[in-house]
């Protein structure tokens, strides 16, 4: 049976690309987003949910387990960003960002790891961001939420190693998606100048890292965060 891969945030951007990419690679892909999917795609199941809603996440993971009996790979892609100065940031924005980026990641790891632990096999890939190591002004909340994801990655790698589950993260540079559509060209160019390789990231740069993390031979690779573009 094909490997089963759960990807969060598949309605657009990187998530949608990842879903299409892994369907084409022969995986059975299960995705989710807040919005319903209005089309039927071979090799793909969609769940409409909020990643920070515990009951909805439980229901989805249970449905995947009942249908396929396993989950081999989890990609925690769902994420939201916000650019603002600290003094102008409403608490509500902080709550929203942490709910999706941190609580959503936590819930999916916890529930999917339960399924993976039964098979004693699993690959989990989280999404970090270069905004954290670059300490970008105006992205404090987003960077802080992703710093939490990095901590989860490194610590849960240890907690889940006994179940033969690896936990790693990829930290993309700016990719031309909705996530950065509100950011000025000036800021984006300044950010690109901080990279060793000064270009926009491409979707294939991200799948290149994920492919490395999820392959069976990578069972000795865990707790790692790979930032793209030469950021360290």
């Amino acid at each position, binding site marked *: 049976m094909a490997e089963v891969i759960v990807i969060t945030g598949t309605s657009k951007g990187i998530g949608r690309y990842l879903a299409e990419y892994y369907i084409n690679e022969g995986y059975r892909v299960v995705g989710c987003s807040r919005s319903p999917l209005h089309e039927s795609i071979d090799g793909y199941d969609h769940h409409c949910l909020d990643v920070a809603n515990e009951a909805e996440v439980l229901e989805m993971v249970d449905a995947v387990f009942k249908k396929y009996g396993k989950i081999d790979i989890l990609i925690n892609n769902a994420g939201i960003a916000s650019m603002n100065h600290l003094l102008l940031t409403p608490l509500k924005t902080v709550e929203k960002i942490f709910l999706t980026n941190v609580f959503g990641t936590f819930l999916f790891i916890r529930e999917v790891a*339960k399924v993976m*632990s039964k098979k004693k096999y699993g690959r989990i890939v989280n999404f970090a961001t270069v905004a954290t190591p670059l300490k970008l002004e105006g992205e404090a909340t987003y960077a802080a939420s992703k710093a939490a994801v990095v901590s989860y990655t490194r610590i849960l790698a240890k907690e889940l190693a006994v179940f033969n589950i690896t936990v790693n993260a990829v930290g993309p540079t700016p990719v031309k998606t909705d996530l950065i559509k509100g950011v000025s060209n000036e800021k984006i160019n300044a950010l690109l100048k901080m990279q060793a390789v000064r270009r926009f990231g491409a979707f294939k740069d991200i799948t290149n890292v994920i492919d490395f993390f999820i392959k069976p031979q990578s069972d000795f690779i865990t707790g790692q965060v790979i930032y793209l573009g030469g950021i360290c």
Partner: protein
Amino acid sequence: MEEQFLEIINQAIHELNEDLEYDHLRNVTIETEIFGGENSIDSISLASLITEIEFLIREKCALNVVLADEKAMSMKNSPYRNVGALLNLITEKL
């Protein structure tokens, strides 16, 4: 329902003990110690046991439950300290 939950706990402990082979887990009663006392299982075994109980409740009772608890690792008040406490936790959560 409580009897069914007790059966589920028994089954999960029995399955876990196939690997552990602990004497005190062979005949499970309401007083059987699970975690935190002298006859404690380790935290990884506890995580596996609780996960299995959640799966069995889902499978046999068609109920989604999360048995995570902030006092899990407490040596004195863990809701997983013995079978009776665990049974209480399940009935409280459901």
